[in-house]
């Protein structure tokens, strides 16, 4: 059951509640106690009406038309291990299963800005999120995301785990966020700063964390672009046994980005949303779930935008890390819908290195040194 399901279950139950319309009595009391029509409140009147009301048991009154704005949305879920992997490789011009078009509501500049910020936030989330996203305080990450042919990527010792399980994350990550040809994230968490180079652009993230209890930490900071625009973000991390939750919010000009992450044993859930112009309507919703049990690895990604829904499921078919075989099923519902199925072969090319070959020719190399 997902977060949205729980919310919808409650809304459905609440909507079905018959609440007696108490307008007549309330209206009378309001007028009687109005500061303008009755400067001195009459508590006795109010009480009497209230008590009279208590004895009445009426469940049949028609439901009012009020229940508007039961706005739940804003559930979304993105990859957390994103910065824990780095991706490189050649890429065909069209990868239907993962190509995410720039939302029509945003210009390409805005989308690029989003991409940078989202990457930063996800990096930050992972830096805080511990085991499932293997970047921990005190570790240094140099992650190079490159769409060129000869890009490489390295991880520290602390980050060398479960790369195969991250396949969905990094595919999503690269296609979703890396709209530039290349960018470099340099995270020095001891210094509580992250420096990101994206072509000629440089942006800096500074953050502070406050441990408010053994299990709960708050963090806040700023992101600055080219030393000028500065944006604040804040969030919280809560550890509950084997579970961990990370929430963060970044407020830009008229746009709020929220990132939520839940990590449990064998299961990861991420969500993020963008809220534009203060409206509660998310312009994009993403759900991402993963279950890992031994070598089993089933993941799914669902992206919903206006008039467009995409989902992608990954399944580990066979292999033990040396020539693993995944199957990715991709479904795109747009103008009648279309289904695409792709298979992914993972080949271990050396100690700590993997090559991922996708059914459509997309090749990704991961080097875990």
């Amino acid at each position, binding site marked *: 059951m997902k977060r949205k*399901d729980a919310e919808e279950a409650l809304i459905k*139950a609440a909507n079905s509640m018959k609440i007696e319309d108490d307008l007549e009595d*309330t209206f009378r009391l*309001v007028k009687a106690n109005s500061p303008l029509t009755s400067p001195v409140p009459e508590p006795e009147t109010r009480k009497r009406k209230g008590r009279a009301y208590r004895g009445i048991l009426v469940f049949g009154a028609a439901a009012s038309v009020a229940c508007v704005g039961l706005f739940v949305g804003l559930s979304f879920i993105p990859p957390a291990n994103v910065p824990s992997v780095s991706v490189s490789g050649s890429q065909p011009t069209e990868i239907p299963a993962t190509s995410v078009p720039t939302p029509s509501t945003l210009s390409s500049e805005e989308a690029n800005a989003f991409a940078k910020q989202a990457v930063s936030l996800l990096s930050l989330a992972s830096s805080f999120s511990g085991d499932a996203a293997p970047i921990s305080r005190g570790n240094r990450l140099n992650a190079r995301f490159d769409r060129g042919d000869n890009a490489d990527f390295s991880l520290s010792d602390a980050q060398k785990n479960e790369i195969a399980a991250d396949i969905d994350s990094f595919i999503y990550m690269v296609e979703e966020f890396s709209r530039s040809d290349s960018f470099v994230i340099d995270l020095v968490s001891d210094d509580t700063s992250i420096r990101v180079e994206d072509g000629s652009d440089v942006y800096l993230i500074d953050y502070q964390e406050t441990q408010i209890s053994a299990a709960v930490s708050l963090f806040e900071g700023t992101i600055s672009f080219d030393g000028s625009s500065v944006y604040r973000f804040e969030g*919280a991390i809560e550890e509950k046994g084997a579970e961990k939750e990370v929430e963060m919010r970044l407020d830009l000009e008229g746009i709020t980005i929220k990132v939520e992450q839940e990590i449990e044993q064998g299961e990861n859930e991420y969500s993020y949303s963008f809220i534009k112009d203060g409206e509660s309507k998310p312009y994009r919703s993403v759900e991402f779930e993963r279950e890992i049990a031994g070598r089993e690895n089933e993941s799914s990604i669902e992206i919903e935008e206006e008039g467009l829904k995409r989902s992608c499921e990954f399944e580990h078919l066979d292999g033990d890390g040396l020539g693993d075989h995944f199957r990715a099923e991709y479904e795109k519902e747009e103008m009648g819908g279309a289904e695409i199925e792709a298979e992914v072969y993972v080949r271990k090319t050396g100690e700590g290195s993997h090559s991922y070959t996708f059914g459509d020719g997309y090749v990704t190399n991961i080097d875990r040194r």
Partner: protein
Amino acid sequence: MERELNDYIEEFRRGEYASFPLFYEATHRKVYYIAYGLLGSEFDAKDVSQDTYVRFISSLSSYRSGSNPYALLATIARNLAYDLLEKKNRLTSFEEEIGNEEEISRKEELSDSGEVKRLLQALSPGEREIVVLHVLDGLKFREIAPIVGKKLSTVLVTYNRAIKKMRGKEEGK
């Protein structure tokens, strides 16, 4: 909707209450949800809802034009509900009102609120109010934080925990 509600409020401030029924229609379910979420009693929730509107009208002099009227209604309803709980010294009333699953089933035959009770049963009072304010009343977390007197991050964490409990309850059903 909020703009319309604010129009009504301007009229109320002038002592004109002709549009109160429309204002009430647009808001009373949400007010009720808050009261019910804390009290777990339909009768008490109705009482508190009624008092909320009386108090709301009296408080309009301090209402900032253009604000979210739900936030003020929610604050009043919440305070009144807590007052009532304190008065009755029954901070665990919700659990008592809910009873066990069997009892809920029986009550469902009489009332349509049984499912709401069942879903909220697993939550603490603090979790319940945040869930109700966000899910049923549509308030944003940053609007909820000042109402419940907690930091935004605490509200977020509490909400997540509550939703997880609800999910667990649904999955274990």
